[in-house]
């Protein structure tokens, strides 16, 4: 990190400590490896008309050191897990003795897949998350055991698939056969859960930019998932974050991989249509 960045950090810190009103998202540009420019703020998709004018990546709500950590693949600890998944990608598994690479080729061939998930899969007759599709491959094509929904192999693989799409805009379909699932997700987003009676929207639509204790509330976008969190020093799936949020409202939460969270994931992803895929991002 440059001396200038450290100096800016000190200024930012003073601002945060002194005046909550100034805890707005930063005006900064994220360029990965001095190469890939990431869209961290853009005009909100049409379906958010009346709710939000602009959508913003969670990256803009983090401190300068955390932001810097994501800008370089070596500094980003999440990339260790991408490398682990690269080994998994090329390793044969299951009764068929096939690897992911045997059908799909190089992992970079999967660029463009992450941005459109969750999506309606015709053959399955349902909206599927990327995790569901990975396990479908494992079970039906490889004859292998499915991975645990938020287990380390699965989350590493989703990090690999996100990493090869970094810079591409999130672009999930919300109409046609996906619409009913999307509507269900939207309803969840605005439903107050738990003893605290909080909906997703209360924090992430009505109050983003404010401080919740010492934490800077973001718009709750999921374009950076899976995220490497400084707090638990590992990759965290979007569904694990949903679970944590619902739990924090003091509610009985849904399970990662449940139809409820798949629907919520589709809806939340659609709120970030137009933001770049960032995973694995770095967050606090």
């Amino acid at each position: 990190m440059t001396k200038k960045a450290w100096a800016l950090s000190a200024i930012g810190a003073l601002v945060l400590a002194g005046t909550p009103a100034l805890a707005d998202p930063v005006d900064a540009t994220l360029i990965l490896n001095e190469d890939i420019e990431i869209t961290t703020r853009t005009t909100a998709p049409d379906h958010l008309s009346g709710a939000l004018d602009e959508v913003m990546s969670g990256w803009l709500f983090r401190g300068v050191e955390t932001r810097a950590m994501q800008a370089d693949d070596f500094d980003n600890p999440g990339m260790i897990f991408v490398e682990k998944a690269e080994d998994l990608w090329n390793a044969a598994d299951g009764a068929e003795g096939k690897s992911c690479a045997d059908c799909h080729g190089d992992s970079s061939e999967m660029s463009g897949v992450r941005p459109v998930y969750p999506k309606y899969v015709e053959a399955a007759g349902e909206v599927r998350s990327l995790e569901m599709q990975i396990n479908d491959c494992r079970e039906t094509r490889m004859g292998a055991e499915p991975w645990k929904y938020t287990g380390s192999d699965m989350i590493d693989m989703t990090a690999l698939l996100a990493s090869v799409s970094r810079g591409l805009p999130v672009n999930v379909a919300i109409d046609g056969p996906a619409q009913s699932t999307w509507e269900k997700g939207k309803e969840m987003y605005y439903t107050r859960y738990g003893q605290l009676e909080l909906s997703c929207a209360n924090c992430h639509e009505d109050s983003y930019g404010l401080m919740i204790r010492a934490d800077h509330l973001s718009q709750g976008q999921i374009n950076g998932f899976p995220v490497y969190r400084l707090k638990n020093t590992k990759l965290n799936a979007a569904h694990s974050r949903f679970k944590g949020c619902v739990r924090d409202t003091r509610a009985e939460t849904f399970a990662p991989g449940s139809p409820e969270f798949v629907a919520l994931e589709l809806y939340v992803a659609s709120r970030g249509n137009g933001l770049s895929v960032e995973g694995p991002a770095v967050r606090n």
Partner: protein
Amino acid sequence: MAKGVKPRVKVPKTAAVGEAITIKTLISHKMESGQRKDGDGNTIPRSIINRFTCGFNGENVVDITLEPAISTNPFFEFEATVPESGEFQFTWYDDDGAVYETAKKITVE
């Protein structure tokens, strides 16, 4: 040997004589501090990388002692000057006796 330990290093492929080159290293490791307790209230024993060294053609660049206060997935960044073409050796020493090694060649022009 701790599970899933994977060293990564970043070294430029070429350098000029006397040039200060930046080296970054990262190893995936839990760095269990010995301060945490498990679900039953028992202390989880300390298990960390306790030493990291970087050498070049047998000469030392840095030799670092790590304590439990180093974060999970230990990261280091430092600078080296190399007199000739050769190989960097990187070595991490685990509390459990395991030693993880990797090497990177560099051409001095």
